């Protein structure tokens, strides 16, 4: 019995390793439209997903919970390319030496804080805080802290507010360097910026971490007050939420296997 089992397992193992060596195909992508016909991994609900759907209709899209899952699938050969925002992409590539970012740029977009439609009071408060942050130099300090030239992120001190009221900020902590986990803490550019905004408004900040594609629904349902999650301003989103002034300019990039 044991012998038979050992033989069976050996056979399965051989078969699997044979399959494993043959599958990962090399793709050549020169323009973003070359994604057509390939298997492309994205994070669900992101502008990358929307872009691929609208511009490359023959693409087989695999929509994951996080960009990291999509990258893992790319490494494993499940997809041929991943479309994602440039900064998280640079982090993914830095951690996975077998992946690379292509030199193709095809979208420009701006990150902003999203608020409920018609909540002009909060919108102007956030805009005032962002403007104040830019003039006081805190904005540049945050940029230097989270996006340093040498790649060594130094997390700045928390902006503490002694207000009694809390304001809830929704995010998806899988988007380096805007929001990610360090130990058991959620940190990042958006988190520090939101702390600043909350302090500016005299309120305490509560960070609520959830799936990216659940954020807008959660805000509409009232369980969070605003979203700071590297969310780009798009016409579709503008029909359903309002945005603050943009605070960061970004692009989508394509990651492939080397």
């Amino acid at each position, binding site marked *: *019995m*044991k012998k038979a089992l050992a033989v069976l397992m050996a056979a399965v193992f051989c078969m*699997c*390793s044979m*399959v*494993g060596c*043959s*599958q*990962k195909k090399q793709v050549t992508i020169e323009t973003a439209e070359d994604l057509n016909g390939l298997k492309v*991994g994205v994070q*669900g*609900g992101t502008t990358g*997903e929307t872009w691929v759907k609208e511009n490359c209709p023959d693409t087989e899209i*695999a*929509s*994951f*919970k996080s960009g990291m*899952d*999509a990258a*893992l*699938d790319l490494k*494993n*050969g*499940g997809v041929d390319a991943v479309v994602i925002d440039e900064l998280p992409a640079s982090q993914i590539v830095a951690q996975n030496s077998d992946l690379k970012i292509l030199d193709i740029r095809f979208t420009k977009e701006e990150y902003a804080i999203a608020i409920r439609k018609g909540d002009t009071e909060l919108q102007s408060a956030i805009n005032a805080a962002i403007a104040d942050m830019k003039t006081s130099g805190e904005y540049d300090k945050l940029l230097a802290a989270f996006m340093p030239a040498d790649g060594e992120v130094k997390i700045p001190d928390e902006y503490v507010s002694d207000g009694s009221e809390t304001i809830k900020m929704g995010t998806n902590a899988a988007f380096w360097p805007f929001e990610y986990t360090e130990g058991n803490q959620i940190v990042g550019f958006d988190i520090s910026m939101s702390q600043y905004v909350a302090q500016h408004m005299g309120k305490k900040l509560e960070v609520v971490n959830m799936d990216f*594609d659940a954020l*807008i*629904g959660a805000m*509409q*349902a009232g369980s969070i007050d605003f979203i700071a999650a590297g969310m780009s301003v798009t016409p*579709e*989103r503008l*029909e*359903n*939420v309002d945005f603050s002034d943009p605070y960061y300019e970004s692009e989508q990039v394509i990651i492939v296997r080397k």
Partner: protein
Amino acid sequence: MDFFMDFFGSIGAFFSGVASDFYQTMIKDGRWLLVAEGLWTTIYIAVCAVLIGTVIGCLLALCKISKSRFLRGIANVYTTIIRGIPLATQLMIFYFVIFAPMGMDRHLVAIIGCGINSGAYVTEIFRAGIQGVDIGQTEAGRSLGLSRLQTMWRIVIPQAVKTALPTYTSEFIALIKETSVLSFIAVMDLNKAGDMIRNATYNAWMPLLSIAAIYLLLTFGLTKLFAILERRLARSDRG
């Protein structure tokens, strides 16, 4: 009179609002196609998985009641591990760690993953069914000169099937609902189809309620179907 006019008027407005909302989110731009595709994925993965689960369940249930300690050990380890880990975690392990590096398609991984998971529960259901048959039946069969295998196949199993059937069918229904975690490995099942509509329209409640209604119809229909099957099997029972 005015009151009634207002009352019915507002109800009418409510329903026409819901209808237009439904049209905007679920019908426009062919979004119902996404739902149809997702529903099909959910059904075929659940059906294939339950077939795999049944085969595994049959084999391991026999292992569990066998005399060999080795076989019993294997079956026990299997059910302990599989039942002790949530399906979502298992699926991610199967996909990202084990099967995807081998180049296996994620739909196949979903079928195998759900099948292996379901197999553990089916094992316990079948074991309970077999052990629920009175030991006197086996003794009677053996003393009539039937072999162990014959007793099992002709006397115990037919009775065990009848007792295990209700829990077995409810395991299938549970599996249909459990497949809603398939989006963890980017399989577009019914639940994910709802997510995608949510992402396209930013309307949360209409896709969610529609998907919920479809799941409910599916499970309710199957419950009724299996109830008919059970009644037919019960016809031969006395009393």
